[in-house]
């Protein structure tokens, strides 16, 4: 067989091509990684990693540029990497090697997987105070979630909740607006279904969008936020079996199933499909992260937004927070450290720009400015930042984790009717139990 020339040619051609691509990729990756960390610290510059693309990325770059312009001698080398698990894989690997960027963006929900393993360095509170950043500038709950064993491991930039956007023009036709021109509060599951059904009558298609099919986080965001509204207890911590309040979890799942009747809400939308349905007017509302605000505002002239409607008693919205962390370094240069703090503080003080992308600034002095108060619809949902529901603080949970992927897949199955709510709860618990038992690699 090996003697057959027709057998050899295509194999080698294909594998050579693949090999060349692979080798090129390796060289490019190795070259850029090695190149940036050494050159950045050698020149006294600060290397920064983030995961912001689209409108977020543009805003972050302009904030960095304006901090660089205002702090003399500061040079920054920003690197933007793709969102999700690849970002955290790269960050963990670079921290483990000690050749990490001086500072990087991390979701607060990932802190429990990074701080205990020594991948991050704690902040020096005195150095932070020198730059004008103090504990009293942040909401106590958020500040507390930035700590591990009494040390500060993250400086929060924003809170980004999962909320309800709506098209004010369509909502008005559907009779869903109050006298103040804003959405009449929706205070029960039935009210939500009713509002969505009335909206569907106006759009001629469906009422509300929610993209969750094959997504790695959306179903969890919706479920966990609403479960937070029920006030249901839970135990998700290493060393004991997982438990949640079954009745309350069932209520939430059954509500979503009822909502997904095909008219009030389509059952099988994926993420981009839901965005398109909302921006094209096929639906008049959408459950979404506030990070989609710039895209929505561009498509819908009269855009409204509210925190997740309180349908289960207690106001709560699923949320996460972008925070600046200090990945572990092998070499500590006091000059570079000071520059890093200058950069982090400078960006916090610029977070008015960041609010333009929809995010709620974590730094209170910015939240209290008249400029922020004038931003709509940002201020309409800013209260969602007061009662955020975060991921359980265990090492395997958080944004872009296999945990979110697994639980989202189970919940999507339940929402679309592929499994009963009880089977879904059983599956959730057994999967979480397996993760609680798994060895902690961090």
């Amino acid at each position, binding site marked *: 067989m090996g003697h*057959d*020339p*027709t057998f050899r040619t295509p194999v080698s051609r294909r594998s050579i091509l693949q090999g060349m691509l692979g080798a090129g990729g390796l060289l490019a990756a190795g070259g850029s990684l090695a190149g940036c960390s050494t050159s950045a610290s050698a020149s006294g510059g600060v290397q920064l990693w983030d995961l912001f693309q689209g409108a977020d990325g543009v805003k972050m770059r302009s904030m960095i540029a304006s901090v660089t312009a205002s702090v003399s001698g500061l040079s920054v080398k920003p690197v933007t990497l793709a969102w999700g698990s690849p970002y955290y894989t790269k960050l963990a690997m670079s921290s483990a090697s000690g050749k990490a960027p001086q500072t990087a963006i991390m979701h607060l929900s990932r802190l429990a997987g990074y701080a205990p393993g020594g991948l991050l360095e704690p902040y020096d509170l005195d150095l932070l105070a020198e730059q004008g950043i103090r504990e009293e500038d942040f909401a106590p709950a958020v500040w507390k979630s930035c700590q591990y064993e009494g040390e500060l491991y993250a400086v929060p930039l924003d809170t980004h909740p999962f909320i309800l956007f709506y098209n004010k023009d369509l909502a008005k036709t559907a009779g869903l607006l109050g006298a103040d021109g804003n959405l009449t509060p929706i205070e029960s599951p039935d009210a939500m279904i009713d509002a969505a059904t009335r909206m569907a009558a106006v759009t001629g298609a469906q009422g509300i969008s929610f993209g969750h099919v094959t997504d790695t986080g959306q179903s969890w965001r919706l479920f966990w936020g609403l479960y937070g509204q029920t006030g249901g207890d839970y135990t998700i911590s290493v060393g004991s079996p997982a438990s949640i309040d079954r009745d309350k979890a069932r209520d939430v799942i059954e509500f979503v199933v009822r909502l997904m009747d095909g008219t009030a809400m389509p059952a*099988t939308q994926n993420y981009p499909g839901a965005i398109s349905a909302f921006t094209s007017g096929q639906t008049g509302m959408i459950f979404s992260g506030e990070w989609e605000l710039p895209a929505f505002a561009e498509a819908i002239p009269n855009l409204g937004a509210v925190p997740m409607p309180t349908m289960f008693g207690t106001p709560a919205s699923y949320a996460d927070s972008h925070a600046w962390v200090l990945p572990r370094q092998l070499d500590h240069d006091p000059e570079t450290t000071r520059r890093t703090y200058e950069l982090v503080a400078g960006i916090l003080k610029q977070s008015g720009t960041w609010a333009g992308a929809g995010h709620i600034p974590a730094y209170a002095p910015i939240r209290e400015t008249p400029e922020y108060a004038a931003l709509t619809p940002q201020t309409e949902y800013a209260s969602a930042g007061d009662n955020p529901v975060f991921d359980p603080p265990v090492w395997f949970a958080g944004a872009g984790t296999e945990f979110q992927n697994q639980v989202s897949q189970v919940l999507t199955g339940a929402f679309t009717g592929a499994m009963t709510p009880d089977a879904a709860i059983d599956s959730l618990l057994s999967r979480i139990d397996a993760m609680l038992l798994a060895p902690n690699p961090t």
Partner: protein
Amino acid sequence: MSSLTSSNEAQAPVAARGSSSAPSGSRSTNARARSIQGRSGFWFVLPFAAAFAMFLIWPILSGLWMSFTNQSLTGSGSAFAGFDNYSEALGDAALWQALGNTVIFTLLTVVPLVVLSFVLAYLVYIGLPGQWLWRLSFFAPYLLPVSVAVAIWQWMFQPDFGLFNGLLLRAGFAQIPFLSEASLAMFSVVVVTVWWTLGFNFLLYLSALNNIPDHLYEAASIDGAGPWRRLFSITIPMINRTTVMIIMLQILASLKVFEQIFLLTNGGPNGATRSVLEYIYDVGFTGYRLGYASAISYLFFALIIVISIVQLRVMNRKSA
């Protein structure tokens, strides 16, 4: 190959005769020449051998070592774990599901990717009008990057306003949840894969068909063989080797499936399309458990070796 072998055989006796009749001095010159040749060969091979050792041999060995440890991607904990990872893998329900998915995917893709590509190549070969258009349209998808191919189909599979569901709705049928229902998602992945990769096999078949000597057909026609007779008695036997090669390549390629599933369904819904390679990726690079991921890789590697050996045996017997 046969012409090359015969020319080697022809040279060998000449060389042997030459050396036997030559004086002893020239024999040592020959030996020196051979050793110089050997040394320069070494330098020619060295760069490749170094790259091969660094990027293939070393990772294979270090991966094997890693599979016996608790090595984490974050650098912590590399304690020796013995066969713990292997025994965990054998009892891991998620891994068995991923393996089942991979096998189903392989069965569902290999058949159409062999049969369809032959049929299309044959239709082009027997002279459909507008050959260049057919060649282009069958081969063009293969040139697309996987991300583009998946993006196109993701939109077409969209509920509500995707091409397929749009047509179904307009014709008064119910929507089909191509990607959200477990039983359909794998089928959708298969459709995308067949569309995207068919062109390569198509091209191999086309070149094999063009290599069949025309005089065979002429002789068959003179003997009164009809088109079907010519297809089954000349065409298919003549491209037998190509078929064997395509089947082997295709089985290996399908077992290695990762990109299109990762991009299209992320392994969902509920793990229904997650392949073994994606599971290894999830465990190793999302869950940071490099030791466990290595152990799964090795188990899968062993499985592929076994499949390849069985395949080789079966195919050899057939083509012999």
